[in-house]
């Protein structure tokens, strides 16, 4: 028995477990610090909750290890349709905190099914892209995989949860790139978004028009297609201010707050400032466990999830932040390397997709906490409090162990 377990696991990239453990412990220490001045009749704090959530997370991780690769490959479309139903379920329940994000079973914990949508979309995309010997040189063949990610993203956006919706879409480009899509085709995908985004600022739009023109000229597509692409985008850009003006004011406001929560009257500017003050005042070595004034005087908002990095920055300093970022960096590089070494296309794609999801979380979370991008609530993997996310992270670690095979190294 033990022997078979050893044989199965010996090929797995065990270093991944070391990184995961380090990050999880860092998360627990920060949550312990936050929990020092929490109180409740039964002694439940963010810290004890997170400890408890580690149990299902670990079970999820172990379970994945025992599922053969071909089973994952075989049943992923079934899991995908199940996932679509699950993310629609919260719409049947009353809203929690104004959104349809959670399923409440009447238990003290609610489940957020969209967390699991991320990894299922990645595996489903991986299967589609590996099953079909796609002619990646052709543009039309990359449209179907986009749908796989777009459908759940649109549903999640209705909940409304822009952060998760964006995360659901991010794996598309890297995975297409990995299977050999032409960069120019990926550019065609991104171009309309940029045309709309820059349309509201004359200088940016002019610059974008020049850049786009140069790219199209340099890649030299067929004349008719190139001209259509260029003017189609310009036209879309010119049209969008009119479309925008035709919206009703409350619709405009809803969209604006979605992308820029600083318009929210509760003051996201306040959150960013407090977060930066917390991080900055931590200095090189930090103020020490439990001594962060910003953290403990509750100046720091949502400190246990979205702004956990501010707690780490304040109490443990730049040195810890740097170590954390370097651990994340090596972790990412390791996954990409495993993806490169994979013998088959399916596991390689799963690994690239998971790397993208982790990467997007780390980037959005830390960039937001340091005021580089607008406030967009996304948790930091392994570190932020939250049961559903912890479980999905550990399942993804299980997938990495499963798909990554070091034996050929």
């Amino acid at each position, binding site marked *: 028995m033990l022997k078979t377990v050893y044989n199965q696991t010996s090929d797995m990239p065990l270093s991944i477990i070391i990184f995961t453990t380090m990050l999880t412990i860092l998360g627990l220490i920060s949550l312990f610090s936050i929990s020092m*001045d929490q109180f409740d009749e039964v002694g439940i704090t963010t810290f004890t909750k997170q400890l408890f959530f580690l149990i299902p997370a670990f079970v999820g991780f172990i379970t994945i290890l025992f599922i053969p690769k071909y089973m994952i490959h075989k049943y992923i479309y079934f899991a995908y349709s199940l996932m679509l139903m699950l993310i629609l379920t919260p719409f049947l329940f009353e809203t929690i905190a104004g959104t349809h994000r959670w399923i409440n079973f009447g238990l003290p914990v609610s489940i957020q099914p969209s967390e699991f949508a991320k990894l299922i979309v990645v595996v489903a995309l991986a299967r589609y892209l590996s099953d079909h010997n796609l002619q990646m040189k052709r543009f039309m063949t990359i449209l179907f995989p986009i749908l796989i990610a777009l459908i759940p993203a649109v549903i999640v956006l209705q909940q409304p949860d822009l952060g998760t919706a964006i995360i659901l879409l991010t794996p598309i480009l890297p995975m297409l790139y990995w299977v*050999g899509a032409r960069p120019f085709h990926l550019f065609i995908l991104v171009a309309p978004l940029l045309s709309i985004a820059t349309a509201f600022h004359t200088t940016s739009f002019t610059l974008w028009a020049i850049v786009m023109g140069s790219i199209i000229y340099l890649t030299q597509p067929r004349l008719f297609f190139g001209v259509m692409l260029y003017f189609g985008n310009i036209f879309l850009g010119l049209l969008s201010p009119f479309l925008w003006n035709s919206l009703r004011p409350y619709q405009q406001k809803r969209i604006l707050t979605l992308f820029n929560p600083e318009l929210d*009257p509760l003051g996201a500017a306040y959150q960013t400032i407090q977060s930066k003050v917390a991080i900055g*005042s931590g200095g090189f070595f930090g103020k020490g466990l439990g001594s962060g004034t910003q953290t403990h005087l509750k100046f720091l908002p949502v400190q246990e999830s979205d702004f956990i990095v501010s707690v780490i920055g304040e109490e443990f300093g*730049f040195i810890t932040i740097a170590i954390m970022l370097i651990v994340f960096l090596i972790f990412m*590089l390791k996954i990409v390397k495993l993806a490169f070494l994979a013998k088959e296309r399916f596991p390689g794609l799963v690994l690239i997709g998971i*790397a993208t999801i982790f990467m997007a979380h780390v980037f959005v979370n830390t960039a937001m906490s*340091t005021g580089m991008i607008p406030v967009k609530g996304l948790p930091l993997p392994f570190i932020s409090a939250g049961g559903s996310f912890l479980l999905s992270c550990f399942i993804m670690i299980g997938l990495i162990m499963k798909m990554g095979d070091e034996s050929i190294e």
Partner: protein
Amino acid sequence: MLKSKNLVPKSRFLVANSVIIIVFSILLIRFFHIQVYGHNEYKIRADNNRIRAIPTAAPRGLILDRYGQILVDNYPTYILTGLPNEMDNENWNFSVISACTAIDTTILIDNFDRYFRGRFIPSRITRDLTFEQLSCIEEHKHELTGINYIQFPERSFPSGVNMSHVLGYVKEIDRSLLRNMVDFEQYDVGDLIGWQGIEKQYENQLRGTKGLAFLQVDAFGREVGTVKDINDIKPIPGKNVFTTIDLSLQKTLEKAMSSYKGIALVTDPATGQILAFVSSPDFSPDIFTGNTTLRQWREIVSDPTKPLLNRITNGLYPPGSTLKMITAIALLEGLTIEQNEELECAGIYQFGDRVFKCWKISGHGKINLDQAITQSCNIFFYQAVQRISLNRFINLCRSFGFGSKTGIDLPNELAGLLPTRDYMNRRYTSRGWSRGHLLNLALGQGDLLTTPIQLAVYINKIATKGNTFIPHFLLSKVPEPTNSINLNEQTWIYIQDYLLHAVTEKNGTGSAADPKINGTNVYGKTGTAQNPHGDDHAWFVGYAKNGNQMASTIILVENGGGGGKIAAPIARIAFEHLFNKIIENRLAVK
């Protein structure tokens, strides 16, 4: 399945690696920039310039009468708070406050614990501070740590009317309440929420949006000023609610009812608007604000006259003779009676082994339908009701709104009780339903119970020939029609005529309701309902009309005796008040 080869050019692998390394480098540089390069600046801000966001309460909207006179107002009170983390010596703090406010320290500590939400959130110590108390605390400020006071708008009732059942009250949200609320994210401990009446019904309009004040506090938590780069978010006051109440009429009727238990209700049949709403005895609505002692509170709760009961929407009464019009309509519609067909009233009527009596012991002699309503003859109806079926009677009652909620815009209205054949068989198992019960029902006795607001809908339907609206308090509300009734035009005219005769004719039972104003016709029916709780209830239901101005009135005096003697004169007061004013206004316009 897994057969497709993983053929990735080395270049793409390197591109992926470079992207990752570049992103992490940017992040590292950013953190270095903030934490090492900008450390001194941020350290100063963290130490000296902590920003605290304090929610500022938004005043609730006012509740006004139809002419804009204030029924419910706000007045500023002061609340004393303590920040647990900064109160170095709690006992000393409390003893100083106790000395200033003359409130016992145990009460102060009780409050403090009750509102406690965390070491860094101010907890309320006491409220309704007077100016003297405030200035005393201000004098001793240097001895106190972590103690602050904030302004808090509270409800006041300047109009002098009670109307407590209509206005309702606001309640402070405590921890256990917040835990059980559906829309908890919009509220916080210590906020006010409408808990009864209009305050509850129109909570969403009345409640404002809280603001945020950003204050700089120093390392000791003392406020040192406002924050430069963030603007305070101003609270948005709640919207005012204009009610349909006519304050002066309400006052007049509260005075008229002050010595009785019962109700007085005035509505406009043409719109469903409620002009006056008196449920007596009632109580001043400010017992829910301010410092009502436990003893005062217990007195109200245990008062045998039940002042807390909203008798108009939640009191269940036998309607007595006021229900006779149902039988009359059933007879006229079914063509089972001739206009001038006379039945004999000998003062006493035997049905099976039971003996029914008329209120007039000598009997009315030979009497037709018109006079039977005018003089409220019982025996006529005992005989006539036998021509219709129970189902017909009950269905007609139902279409006039009995047995279901009227939909008035107050919370917790009751539906009354309309006994069906099934209900009667269940209730009286041994004998089941018998025609004797129908005789009782025709006179509004027996199992049928109504709320006064249902009677208002009933009389409004008669006044408008079935085209009335759901009674409501919100002036801006578009009236919702009640369910429609299809009766012959002639039936409506007959019934209205009978009601007119009951008030205008010399021997009409309702003659005391007529204010005798030129051009104003009063229609009405009295009732004297027997009940198991003592003397008869006195009823008057009716309406008055002058040109196209209409108003209907329901009066109930519990255990008051005869409806014509007790209830009708109160209705006259209402009509007098309204129609004199209408005529005055008309003259003024001319």
